[in-house]
């Protein structure tokens, strides 16, 4: 079963960067890739990267930061009043 995800979440712009990756610490395990519900992560040359448009797609669950064993991924929330909005949460 595949549900078209486009249009299923609403975002307020102006978040700034709220996810950072320390490439030195990343061991390329790929747990962030597996856990992200909206598939924002990938591995390139053995190191995790996040899609450039993550600010408009991220659901702010914070899983990427929590699963990261070497603490390479740092998740903090976007600026107040910006980012994902749940109208029927």
């Amino acid at each position: 079963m595949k549900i078209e995800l486009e249009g299923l979440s609403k975002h307020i712009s102006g978040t700034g960067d709220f996810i950072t990756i320390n490439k030195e610490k990343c061991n390329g395990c790929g747990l962030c890739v597996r856990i992200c519900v909206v598939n924002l992560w990938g591995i390139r040359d053995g190191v995790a990267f996040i899609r450039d448009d993550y600010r408009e797609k991220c659901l702010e669950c914070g899983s990427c930061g929590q699963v990261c064993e070497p603490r390479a991924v740092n998740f903090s929330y976007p600026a107040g009043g910006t980012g994902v909005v749940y109208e029927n949460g």
Partner: protein
Amino acid sequence: MNNYDIIIVGGGPGGSMAAKTAAESGLKTIFFERGRKPGEKNSSGCGLGPRMFRDFPDMMKELTPEKCPSMRAGVYARNYFVNKDDIVSAMILARPTESVTYEPAKSFITMNCYRSEFDPWIADLATNAGAELKCSILITNILKENGKVIGVIDEKGEKYQAPIVIGADGVISTVAKGSGLRDKWFHDHCTIVPQYDFVVPRENIDKIMGEETLGVWWGVNFPSAYQVFFGDGFHIGLGNWLHSWKKNPLYYLNRVVGLKHFQHLIKMLDAKPRELQAHLLPWMPYPEKTYTDHVMLIGDAGGFPCPLEAEGIYPAMVTGKIAAEVAAEAISEGDTSKTKLKEYEKRWQASSVGREFEAGPELWSVWKALPFSTEGNMEWFIPMVSEALTGIFDWSEPHTIRLRQVLAQVKKYLPKALPVLMQEFIPLLSKVLEDDLDKLMDPKILQNLMSAIPALLQLMPKKKKKRRGR
């Protein structure tokens, strides 16, 4: 500098309850919400349990459909048992049983409403009581002086000062981190929960679902999923611990939505996907560290969701209220150290939430062993339950033969089932009934029990006797 008696970080049900209680007891109270309004950052199954209506009656009677148009309560929960072939092999429609003691628990299992309506409603109660609410503000750090927590700092560097800070800031809690109470969750203490919201034409919900308000999809191929019906739609979601996923969490949720039976339900209801949501949810055997000097953690930030099913709104409200009451006492006594705030732990332990956690590790372990055991224990659990509960109602053979077939089939699952049942349910029962079990250990009773077992075994028929007439 902005000075307050109490700072509450977070404007969810827990934060608002704390703010309301603090303001009512005369404290100069401020609470912060990172969304433009409370509730717009939150997604949850969102069923309000009857305990909330029992424990906060004056407040909850004010919750009306005018304020929360999505409100929908119902008496039935449908349990779908989905086997390894993704077929619904049995269903049980559950309702409050005869042992349920009070209203409204006899009349509904949950009152469902969207967080986008519920959270602003409860925040209004707090501001009406005199608490100041600041929205669209992210608190980014704890403010300290000589290592001592004295307030918080927002994203723009603005400082707020108070002798007590309450962390109501959810699963990724700045207050927990900044105060040293928790940096990260252990992997089997925190779950990730993806969830779809489906829109349904309002008239279809009652027409088709009747008094059903919840669905639970117990599966072999996915961690058990919950379905919650609102006035104009439903949520379908599931969760598991962060490291327990073999594939992307959405794969499993899509598998539920793709079930033939689920698709049939979607068609009947004329339901359409409206929103995709995801959140982390603490799921703890026990909330270990919930306070330190000048700081108390409530709700999700403290790890308070129920250890069996991880419902978190009621525990957030209970702990929020207790934390604010303790804060008021601590402030009036001029002692907000952890020695005084230990009172918070004592009181939540004595509350309904604490009672839940008395068998927290055992309840938590049951869930881990069964619904979260995708492609594990559910492989025998689902067919065993289906066989045992429904196998006899079948016309393929005379019922006398069917009963033997059912028993033989159930027996096949026992080598796998018994060790798990012993390991999970005996500790739970012995924890819950520990005082009573002490009495059972009376040698005389034990002796009677032991002598009864061989007698019972004797009753098992060795040979099938034929019965013809009288």
